[in-house]
C-alpha cells in the first residue's frame, strides 16, 4: 500500500515530467465576462508558445505562424526578471536589456571559427529575478582573427537556433529524413520531419524548438532541478566518435559522416541533451562546407548529471571556473558512470595521480580501458585498486556527487597539492562526493586538470579515510 509520504514523493516525481512555460505578464483587473479574453489575447501575443509549445489554446493554434517562415520575435519576460537575449546580436541584446531597466556589461569571448557578435551567455540566468538598475553581463562571441576557417563554421547552427527561437526561416529538409531518438530510428518525409522538430514539447520532449529553447534558458526556473535551465551550448563537428549523451548506438548509415553537433552543457539540469544534424553531400568532408538540406537528425537525451553544490539561497557555492570547466567535469562524470566513452579531449595521454602523488601516464589509446585507470598504493586506510571509474561503478550511485571548483577538505593526501602548471594545465575542476550526512570515509574527489583549450592533462583521485 502506498503511504501518504510515498504518495507525496510519487506525485513530485510525476510533476517533474511537466515542463512549465515561461511566466506571462501578471493579470490585471478585467470584467468577469471577459475572463477568457485576457488569457487568450495574451496567448496570441506570447508567441513563445511556438517555442515552448504548451501555452496556446487550440483556438489559437490555427493562427500560429507557419513554421516554414520567419516568426515574430520572442516576448520579453515579466518586469523584474531577466529576459533571454540568447543568440541575439550584441546591440539588439543591449537594447532589450536596457528596455527592461538593466545596466549591460558586455564581455567578448574570442574563439576560432565562430560567427561573431552573438550572445552566448547571460549572467544572471534568464528568468532569474533581478531588480531594475542591476547589471546583466552578456558574453558575446568574437571570431579569432588569426585562424583560417572555411566560412564561419557555426553559421548553420545559428541558422537553426534563429529558426527555433522564432527569428529566422526554417532550414530545408531532404525528401527523406532519418530521425533517431535515443536509438530508435524513423524515416520520415521532409515535411513530417519539419513537423517533428517544431512539434510542441512532450514530456521530456525533443524537437529542435524544444531543444533550443531549453538551451536558451527560456524554459523558466525549474524548481525540481534546483536551478535554472542552462543557456550554454557547444557546436562541434561530429563523426559519431565524439562524446555523446547516453549510450545508445549511433544509427547505421551515419557512421563516419560528419554532423553538426549541438550539445547542451548541462551544468544545472539533470539529463544531458545533444542534437546532431546531418546534411546531404558531406560524406567524408566537413559539414560546415555544405549548403545541402538536412537528411538526418540524431537526438540524445539522458546520461544522468548532477547539479553544482547549492547554497541555502540557491546560488552555487565553490563553482567551477566557468561553464566550459563544468563541461569537462560533466563529460568525465559520464565516463565514470559508464554512459560515455572517454571524452576525446586530451593531448593524447593523461597523467594519473593518487592523493596528489604521481602514479603513471595513461597512453591516449588506453584511456577507454577501465583497467588502465587502476592504481595500487598504501593509501586512505583502504585496499587497492583505486580508480576514478570504480568510485561510481562500485559505489552507491550519485548520492552526494557534485561538481565544484576545488577539492573539499578531509580527504587523504600522499603529497602536496598539485600545481596546475606542473601538469601543463591552466586550472582544475572537481567531481566530488561529500556533503552533509556523508562521513569522510564516504567522501572522495576526482580532480581534473585542463589546459587553455579545456583538454584534460591530468587526473587526481582522492579518498577520505574511514
Amino acid at each position, binding site marked *: 500500500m502506498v503511504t*501518504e509520504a510515498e504518495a507525496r514523493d510519487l506525485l513530485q516525481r*510525476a510533476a517533474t515530467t511537466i515542463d512549465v512555460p515561461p511566466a506571462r505578464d501578471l493579470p490585471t483587473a478585467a470584467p468577469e465576462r471577459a475572463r477568457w479574453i485576457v*488569457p487568450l489575447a495574451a496567448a496570441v501575443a506570447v508567441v513563445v508558445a511556438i517555442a515552448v509549445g504548451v501555452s496556446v489554446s487550440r483556438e489559437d493554434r490555427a493562427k500560429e505562424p507557419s513554421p516554414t517562415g520567419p516568426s515574430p520575435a520572442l516576448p520579453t519576460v515579466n518586469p523584474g526578471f531577466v529576459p533571454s537575449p540568447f543568440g541575439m546580436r550584441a546591440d539588439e541584446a543591449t537594447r532589450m536589456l536596457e528596455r527592461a531597466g538593466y545596466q549591460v556589461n558586455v564581455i567578448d569571448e574570442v574563439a576560432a571559427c565562430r560567427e561573431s557578435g552573438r550572445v552566448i551567455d547571460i549572467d544572471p540566468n534568464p528568468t532569474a529575478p533581478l531588480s531594475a538598475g542591476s547589471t546583466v553581463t552578456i558574453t558575446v562571441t568574437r571570431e579569432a582573427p588569426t585562424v583560417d576557417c572555411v566560412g564561419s563554421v557555426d553559421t548553420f547552427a545559428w541558422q537553426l537556433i534563429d529558426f527555433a527561437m522564432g527569428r529566422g526561416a526554417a532550414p530545408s529538409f531532404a525528401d527523406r529524413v532519418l530521425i533517431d*531518438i*535515443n536509438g530508435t530510428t524513423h524515416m520520415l518525409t521532409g515535411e513530417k520531419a519539419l513537423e517533428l522538430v517544431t512539434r510542441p514539447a512532450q514530456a521530456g520532449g525533443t524537437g529542435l524548438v524544444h531543444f533550443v529553447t531549453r538551451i536558451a534558458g527560456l524554459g523558466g526556473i525549474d524548481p525540481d532541478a534546483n536551478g535554472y535551465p542552462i543557456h550554454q551550448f557547444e557546436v562541434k563537428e561530429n563523426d559519431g566518435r565524439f562524446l555523446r549523451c547516453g549510450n545508445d548506438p549511433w544509427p547505421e548509415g551515419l557512421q563516419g559522416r560528419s554532423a553538426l553537433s549541438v550539445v547542451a552543457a548541462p551544468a544545472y539540469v539533470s539529463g544531458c541533451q545533444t542534437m546532431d544534424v546531418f546534411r546531404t553531400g558531406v560524406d567524408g568532408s566537413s559539414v560546415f562546407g555544405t549548403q545541402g538540406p538536412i537528411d538526418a537528425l540524431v537526438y540524445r537525451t*539522458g546520461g544522468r548529471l548532477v547539479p553544482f553544490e547549492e547554497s541555502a539561497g540557491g546560488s552555487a557555492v565553490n563553482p567551477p571556473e566557468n561553464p566550459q570547466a563544468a563541461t569537462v567535469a560533466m563529460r568525465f562524470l559520464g565516463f565514470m558512470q559508464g554512459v560515455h566513452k572517454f571524452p576525446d579531449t586530451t593531448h593524447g595521454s593523461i597523467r594519473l595521480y593518487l592523493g596528489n602523488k604521481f602514479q603513471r601516464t595513461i597512453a591516449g589509446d588506453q584511456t577507454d580501458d577501465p583497467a588502465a585507470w587502476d592504481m595500487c598504493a598504501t593509501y586512505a586506510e583502504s585496499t587497492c585498486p583505486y580508480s576514478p571509474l570504480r568510485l561510481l561503478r562500485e559505489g552507491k550511485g550519485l548520492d552526494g556527487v557534485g561538481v565544484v571548483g576545488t577539492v573539499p577538505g578531509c580527504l587523504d593526501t600522499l603529497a602536496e597539492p598539485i600545481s596546475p602548471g606542473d601538469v601543463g594545465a591552466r586550472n582544475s575542476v572537481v567531481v566530488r562526493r561529500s556533503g552533509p550526512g556523508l562521513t569522510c570515509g564516504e567522501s572522495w574527489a576526482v580532480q581534473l586538470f585542463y589546459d587553455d583549450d579545456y583538454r584534460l592533462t591530468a587526473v587526481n583521485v582522492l579518498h577520505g579515510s574511514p
Partner: protein
Amino acid sequence: MTVDFAEYVAARRATLFRTAVLLGCPQQDADDLVQVTLTRCYRHWAKVSRANNPDAYVYRVLVNAYRDARARHWHSELPTEELPEVVIADDDLAAALAVRSAVEALSEEHRAVLVLRFYADLSERETARVLGLPAGTVKSRTARALAALSADQNIVRSN
C-alpha cells in the same frame, strides 16, 4: 500578514501549472487555465491574501476554472500524425513518467484528491472545501485512491 500577489505568483505558478496538468488539464491548455485562475484571484487578492492559507482559495478557483473550461473546450482530440514518440533513456525520467501515467489512469475523483492532498499539499479539510465535498468523503476517497495507485504495477516506489 498579507502576501504580495506578484510574490505569490512567482512562488506558486509552476506548482499551479503542474497541478492543472496532473488534474487532467491538457498541457497545452494549462497555461491558459493558470492565467484565468490568477486573473480571478487577482481581483479579490486583498481578501484572498488575508486568508490563513491563500492556497486553498486559489486551488478552489483553479479546480472550478478547470471544470468550466473542460465543459466548454476540451472535447476535440489533438491532431496526431504517425510521428515517432519520444523515447526516454533516463531511468529516473522513465520512472517519473510511469507515475504520471498511473495518476492519469486513476478515476477523476481519485486523481483530484491525490493531487490536491499530496502535490498541492492541502489539508483534508482544505481539499474538501476546494472540491465541495464533506471531509469524510475526502478521507475515504484518499484511502481508495492510494489503494488504486498501489495496484499499479508500473510505478517504482522509492525505498
